[in-house]
């Protein structure tokens, strides 16, 4: 016997809403509460390891947005290439992570931060110095499982509910 046409649907709906009333709201109050993003988060900036980089330019070739610019000069004394210019226009970056995967020397990482809004378009361009690793600018665990282990676990909305007084 089907009960769908006896007004049962309304009763079902009412129980759903009352259950929502009694459980925690799944809301994040952003500036006060910040959730941990996924450990394999593809953030809005790149972290660059100056020591490992050989200046091969694979990242720039892989980037289908053409966001990465690299210029090198030969360094005869150390028998390597010196990276003169390395900059990323994060305005063009689509966080696909191909550059990170392509780098044969594991010199490039995706960033873990997500608050990268800027007032001017020019400020979106990351220069060489802006890309170095610092404690504030954490490395995401994307493509690097050993880096992911160091990061805190992702918080889910259903776990995190405290109302601000």
């Amino acid at each position, binding site marked *: 016997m089907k009960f769908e*046409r*006896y007004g049962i649907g*309304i009763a079902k*709906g009412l129980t759903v809403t*009352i259950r*929502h*009333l009694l459980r925690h*709201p799944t809301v994040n109050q952003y500036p006060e509460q910040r959730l941990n993003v996924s450990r394999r988060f593809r953030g809005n900036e790149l972290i660059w390891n100056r020591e490992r980089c050989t200046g091969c330019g694979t990242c720039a070739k892989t980037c289908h947005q053409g966001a990465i610019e690299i210029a090198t000069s030969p360094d005869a004394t150390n028998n390597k290439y010196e990276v003169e210019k390395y900059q990323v226009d994060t305005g063009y970056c689509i966080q696909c992570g191909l550059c990170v995967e392509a780098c044969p020397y594991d010199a490039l990482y995706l960033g873990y931060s997500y608050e990268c809004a800027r007032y001017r378009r020019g400020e979106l361009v990351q220069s060489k110095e802006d890309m170095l690793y610092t404690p504030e600018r954490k490395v995401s665990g994307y493509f690097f499982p050993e880096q992911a282990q160091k990061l805190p676990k992702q918080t889910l909305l259903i776990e995190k509910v405290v109302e601000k*007084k």
Partner: protein
Amino acid sequence: MPPDWPGGFWWHWLFFTVVIIGFVLTMVMGAIYLERRGMGRMQSRLGPNRTGPFGLLQPVADAIKVLLKENIVPFTADKVVHWLAPVIAFAPALMIFAVIPFQNGALLADLNIGILYVVAVSSISTVGIFMAGWGSNNKYSLLGAMRNVAAVVSYEIPLVLAIVGVVLIAGSLSLNQIVLAQDIPFILLQPLGFLLFFAAGCAEINRSPFDLMEADSEIVAGFHTEYSGMKFAMFYLVEYAEAIAISAIITTLFLGGWRGPLLPPWLWFIVKVFLVFFAMVWTRTTLPRIRIDQLMAFAWKFLFPMSLINLVITAIQVLAGWPTELAWAMVIINIAIMVGLVLTWSRFFFRLGWGRLEV
């Protein structure tokens, strides 16, 4: 307590006028807070929580914001009608409270035709709303107002028929007498009547799921599309004042009004009003808005025949003597009748083609 408490005709009038205005405004603020927070939580949100502790000052913030806004009147509007509409819509919402007892004998006017007065007065808001729709000179406003008139005309009938059932049992039209007659709350003796009254009442004051007159997705904001500033605030106030008024009437008619143990009577009254209002918020959050043809069909094919059947059954029960010692047996019988009728008629309602015009 004597009926003319607190003594002296004019003192009585002054006291209760001030009390009613204060009561309505405070209750509206409480209702807005309860609705926004409660609805937020039911939708897994928090609701407004920035203004004051727990967002308690949100209604105040809303009021200040809306008062400071510019008052825009459309160039082609009928200025006088446009200006008068919010006032005419608001006055009846206040006037309803004149006959609602806050405790035994504590009411502005203990009319012996109290509930008739409520039915008569509550329909006047519709005139204000229709004036708003007409005076704005806007097609959406007019559509919203027409829908409101259609809804009120249709839903007034089941509403009044549901009231008649209560009046038959209580044997009086005075709201104070009706409360005094409720040794058992009439929601138990008249469960079907309560459901009918609740549904028809929600439709009458255009709360969702029957809020077709201001269906945002179809007709912008309905009759108050062209209103802003203080006049919009008046309509906002009317919406909640009417919701409180209907809650108060339901409390008085079905939930035993101010009667209850331990707490003082007026507090019981307020608690019950908020309980009924909470039920309205609950249904509002749960149910999606219905179409205009479904609105009409629900009134004429479901509520109207059900209220007629309810009236006949109640009349037979009252004629048969209404054995007071067997009141609890009657409660069980009436609840069984309600469940059976709702189930069978829901089935029949679909046979009748629910929203469709032809059968």
